[in-house]
Every structure is written in C-alpha cells, then in structure tokens.
C-alpha cells in the first residue's frame, strides 16, 4: 500500500475539530450506486491496492476487477467492482464502474457456479484464443465476488 499523498497545502487551513470527510460517488451505467460522506477509501488499482484519506491530491487511475472498501463512522463496507475509473479531486471521489455490488447483494452460489464455468473453459482453451481473456476476467470477477461476500459473512 502506498502512503497517502499529502495534498494541496497541508495542514488544512481552518482545521476543525471534526474529522474531515470526503464525498464518495459510485456511478454505473444503470444507476448511481452510492453517494455518501466517508472517512477513508481503499481500492484495487492497476498497480495494486491504494488508500485515500481526506486532503488527497488530485488523482486519476484505472481500477482492476477488485474490491473497494470505505469507512464511514468507523464502519467498513466493501463492494465488488468490475473495471472502472477512480478520480479524486477536492475531497470528492468519483468512481466510474461497470458494475458495483454490495457484499450482501452478492449471490455466493452464482459466483461459485461462474467460477467453475470459467475454470472449465480456461482449461480447454488455448491462451492465444480471443475468448481466453474473457474467461480470465470472468474468473477474476467470480473470485472477487466470493472474497467480498465471505468477508461480510465472517463479520
């Protein structure tokens, strides 16, 4: 994990006693999934996991298929994301993703079935095949879903 890059004229002027918060928006083509004030966000980027705290410098990255967790008033919530963008600007985070699922919404059985299907297909296919990449992504999605769901179940 990379350290939080201190942004724009830290320490923040007029620091209040209250903890700073960031606005987190998660948008998919079908709907706005989330629009909340949060304390901390961690997500899986192309180059690995990273965290963002209030006062972060403007930042734009692409996300891998992976998890996004945010903390709000001490409660951590995780979501499974499927490919997207992550933008930070002025304590406002915008996440553009194709799908975002809350841990409770994930159907574990379905994810397991998808995992099995993808594994079978990958065994048969040649890595050069066009479909190989598609199934590889499917495999990863299923894994992330299961991971997110099982985390929530343990709590």
């Amino acid at each position, binding site marked *: 994990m990379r350290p939080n890059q201190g942004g724009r004229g830290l320490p923040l002027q007029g620091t209040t006693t209250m903890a700073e918060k960031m606005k987190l928006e998660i948008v998919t083509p079908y709907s706005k999934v989330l629009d909340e004030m949060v304390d901390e966000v961690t997500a899986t980027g192309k180059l690995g996991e990273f965290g963002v705290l209030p006062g972060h410098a403007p930042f734009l990255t692409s996300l891998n298929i992976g998890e996004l967790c945010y903390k709000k008033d001490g409660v951590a919530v995780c979501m499974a994301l499927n490919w997207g963008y992550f933008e930070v*600007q002025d304590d406002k985070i915008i996440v553009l993703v194709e799908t975002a699922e809350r841990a409770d919404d994930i159907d574990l059985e379905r994810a397991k079935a998808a995992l099995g299907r993808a594994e079978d297909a990958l065994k048969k296919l040649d890595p050069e095949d066009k479909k190989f990449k598609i199934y590889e992504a499917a495999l990863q999605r299923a894994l992330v879903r299961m991971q997110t769901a099982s985390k929530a179940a343990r709590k």
Partner: protein
Amino acid sequence: MASLKSIKKRIVSVKNTRQITKAMKMVSAAKLRRAQENVVAARPYAQKMGEVLQSLAGNLQGEQHPLLEKREAKKLLLLVVTSDRGLCGGFNSNLCKAGERYIKENAAEFEQISLMTIGRKGYEFLKNRHTIHKNISNIISKPNYQAAAMVAQDVIEGYLSEEYDQVVMLYNSFRTVMTQDITFQQLLPIVPEAKGAVDEVGIEYIYEPSVEDLLTQILPKNIEVQIFKAMLESVAGEHGARMTAMDSASKNASEMIGKLTLQYNRARQAAITTELMEIISGAESIKG
C-alpha cells in the same frame, strides 16, 4: 343509406380498435417512464466519462492514439439505431428517410458507405435500398450495457482494420414525450472538444499508470457508453412516439364512433318514420 345492421357492426369494430390502442397507450406510458428513468440514470456515467476523457486528451502529448487520429475519410460506416417494433408513428420512417438523404448527400465524398443497423425496422427499410453490412436485432427492446459493448467492439475492430475511416451514428434522441430529435453523431474518430476549456481548469492530476495507458482503456469505453446512451434514448423516444401515436389513434376512433352513432340514430329514426307513415296510411285506407 347503409343498413342499421352494418353501421352497428362498424361501431363495434371501431370500439374494439379503440380499446386496443388505449391499452397500447397505457403500456407505452408505463414503459416510457421506466425508459426515461434509465436515460436519467445513465446520464451521470456518460457525462463523467466525457469529462475524464477530455481532461486526458487535453494532457496528451506526442503520439496520437489510433482512435483519435484523423484519417483521410474514404469509407464511412453509418450506424442506424431504430426500434424492433412498429406502430409508433413516424418514429422509424422519419429516421430512415433522414439516413437515406444523408447517404445521397454524402455519396460523392466517400468511396463507400456501409451500413450497420440496430433494430429490425431500420433493417427492413434499408435492406431493399442498400446492402447492409451487419444487422443486430433483438437487443434494442431491452438495452443492456453488454450488448452495447459488443456493438462497440465490432465498430472499433472494423475501424482499426481500416474497413472504414469514419463512423457516424444515427438515432432518435429523446427530447420530450412528443418530440424526438433525429441526431447524427460522429463516433470515430473521436473528436476531443476545444482544448482551451480543459487548460483553464488547470488541475494537475496524478495519473496512474500513465495518460496513454488510461486513454487506451477509456477511448473504447467511451464508444460503448455513447452507443448505450443512444440505445436508451432511442427506446425512450420509441415509447414516447408510440404513446402519442396511440393517443391520437384513440382520439380518432372516438371521433369515428361519434359520427357513426349519429348516422345510426338517424337511420333508426328514418326507419321509424317510414314505418309510422306506412301504418298511418294503412289505417287511413281502411277508414276510407
């Protein structure tokens, strides 16, 4: 004058038609609401995507990305988005005619104009006049992102392999329930909007992994989003158009029923009058 029985029959049949058009209007109204919600829900995504793209393209130095590069346009692909089903007024035919006109006007400029259609109606209209490069039906009635992504991939592949040098999308954009705007939109090459506007914002982003990498990913996504948005708008427009068409059909039917009822009553009155006359004259003759 038509016989009483035949008028009655017509009234019944027009009433049946009105019932159907009324029901179709109700269904369209319900579907329209959902389609409109979808359009609104997709808007922030498309808009944000556009913003990110602009800021990236503005920061791009040196080598051009192939999807941004402007080639000499010789071969054009026209992507026509229509609906699968009819009975929605001039919704499809107006669009197809506009496409037809566009092809005629631009025929001189391009060596070749190929067509790709989404939706059965556009395909049926255009297939008799032109050769259709590819037709994709049965996805427009329930637009989903995956379907749009598949179309986008097709388009991008064709563009990169230089099957065509320019891609224009033609669709009905949703303005109000009553009106749809016929829209031509250039999909490829992507034209970044005025660069000056981006510079004014002047925010220095940290890009990860790099501007180029991000751009290679976001450009195809942008095409997907554009097509998805066009599909959603077209569906909303279709339901709107059908609703208006069915509304006016119901109104016409009611008017027709009114006229026919009047005719029926007149005919009935006339029949009664002649009968009375016959009776009276019969009675008179007996008396006499």
